């Protein structure tokens, strides 16, 4: 249905936008092992995005590439968290930490979707996202308890990204129309917080307080980072309408 397609866009856009950011690190990471690890994560996310966009487009006869390359900014559905720039490595890790915890709980719940396709995508994705989560946890611990500088940066990174957590738990009207099919975002809050909490405790990091971004990505209201990101993502495809690659 149109609603299911819309929901698949939410999820697909989150993954694609995050992968686009992570791809930047390849050849720029702090060590070769991280070039590979962040590359793996980006690859997994592109895989999820492709499945989800493929599914989202099927209803309207659009391909994954039609959706990735030919939608304008207001038609994107990514949440602001995924749109936030890489910043330094601690920012990237903070974004991964929040994103992977959210995605893990999301896909864990989505495995029980009455929509067989979404359930199947979730079942595959959850295993990969579990690795992403573990990767981010290891780095949060290392950076928070490594050197004075890394701790300072980790705290800054976490408090810069934390405002974007809230949007992930907002139940838009779409969700009411997808009972049993979609995961209710508000139902994830306790799970995500419970999973992050012991890590933050072990890292001796407090839960950042202060700003909360009001988001709006699911309605097409995006942060200022998305426009330039899409300019780069889409530039070549749009220069050759109708071409295949």
């Amino acid at each position: 249905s149109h609603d299911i397609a819309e929901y698949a866009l939410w999820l697909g856009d989150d993954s694609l936008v995050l992968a686009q950011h992570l791809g930047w690190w390849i050849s720029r990471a702090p060590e070769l092992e991280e070039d590979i690890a962040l590359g793996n994560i980006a690859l997994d996310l592109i895989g999820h995005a492709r499945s989800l966009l493929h599914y989202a487009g099927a209803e309207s006869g659009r391909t994954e590439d039609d959706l990735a390359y030919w939608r304008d900014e207001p038609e994107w559905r990514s949440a602001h968290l995924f749109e936030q720039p890489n910043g330094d490595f601690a920012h990237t890790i903070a974004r991964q930490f929040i994103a992977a915890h959210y995605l893990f709980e999301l896909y864990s719940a989505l495995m029980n979707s009455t929509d067989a396709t979404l359930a199947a995508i979730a079942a595959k994705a959850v295993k990969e996202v579990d690795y992403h989560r573990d990767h981010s946890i290891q780095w949060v611990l290392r950076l928070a308890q490594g050197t004075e500088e890394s701790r300072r940066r980790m705290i800054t990174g976490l408090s810069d990204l934390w405002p974007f957590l809230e949007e992930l738990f907002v139940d838009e009207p779409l969700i009411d129309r997808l009972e049993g099919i979609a995961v209710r975002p508000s139902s994830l809050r306790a799970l995500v917080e419970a999973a992050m909490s012991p890590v933050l405790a072990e890292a001796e990091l407090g839960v950042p307080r202060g700003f909360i971004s009001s988001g709006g990505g699911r309605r097409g209201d995006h942060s200022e980072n998305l426009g330039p990101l899409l300019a780069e993502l889409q530039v070549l495809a749009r220069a050759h309408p109708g071409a295949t690659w």
Partner: protein
Amino acid sequence: SAEEQQFNDLIAADSRIEPRDWMPDGYRKTLIRQISQHAHSEIIGMQPEGNWITRAPSLKRKAILLAKVQDEAGHGLYLYSAAQTLGISRDLMTDQLIAGTARYSSIFNYPSPTWADMGSIGWLVDGAAICNQVPLCRASYGPYGRAMVRICKEESFHQRQGFEILLELMNGTPAQREMAQESVNRWYWPALQMFGPPDDDSPNSAQSMAWNIKRFSNDDLRQRFVGMLVPQAEVLGVTLPDPDLRWNEERGAYDMGDIDWTEFHEVLAGRGPANARRLQRRRDAHNGGQWVREAAAAYAAKQAVKAVA
């Protein structure tokens, strides 16, 4: 000495030398130079392709490209490990690379201004690399040979992907075809230069061949490469930009035009289009990541203390 005799016997029998075996200083130095240079090439080689990850024109191509660049990081890692078995540290090799005192394949000092370059790099650059590397799978030094086996498998996969990119373009719109041909024009000659100077100008080759590191001469490998390219270029429908390229029935091989070795030596000497930027990027990534590596080391040390206590 007895050790030297044993080494020579192993070489004569075309057997493998292993890290624990005695080896002549020259052999060790030659291998360290060659393997680390090869590792650096993988690492620097990530850049011209990394340049298009964010702009890849389809999600499938984006995923394939990302996986490829990531493979190159993996190759770099194997090769650094192989070099480490010869007694050089990864830190030292990294420092040499960043300081500009170590070499890497000069081809990566060319930029990749178009998407078609993702095709040409795969088809021509990886293709040339494979011709160079397949014989290295039998290199006398064990860890190097074994690393090459693994790398060659992936490289031939990469070459096929590059060929496919060009094939899609050549089957595409006029603009895509033009993009492909223009790119092949730019990469063809530098790819031929990857095999190194002509045999009569390649002083170290004889010793490397005697040590069973190198198995074929530069010119032989170049000839083999061109022989492989010509039929593939026909399938693609691209023109190889050498008006003198033609089959020589007598020699049973292709005659080629002259290679511009002046350009080769200019680029090698640091006067190519992208040398400065390639090393700058590597240096910035390394220095910018210093605090992360320090944090990881400090954390590991603290954990080790806790484990003991």
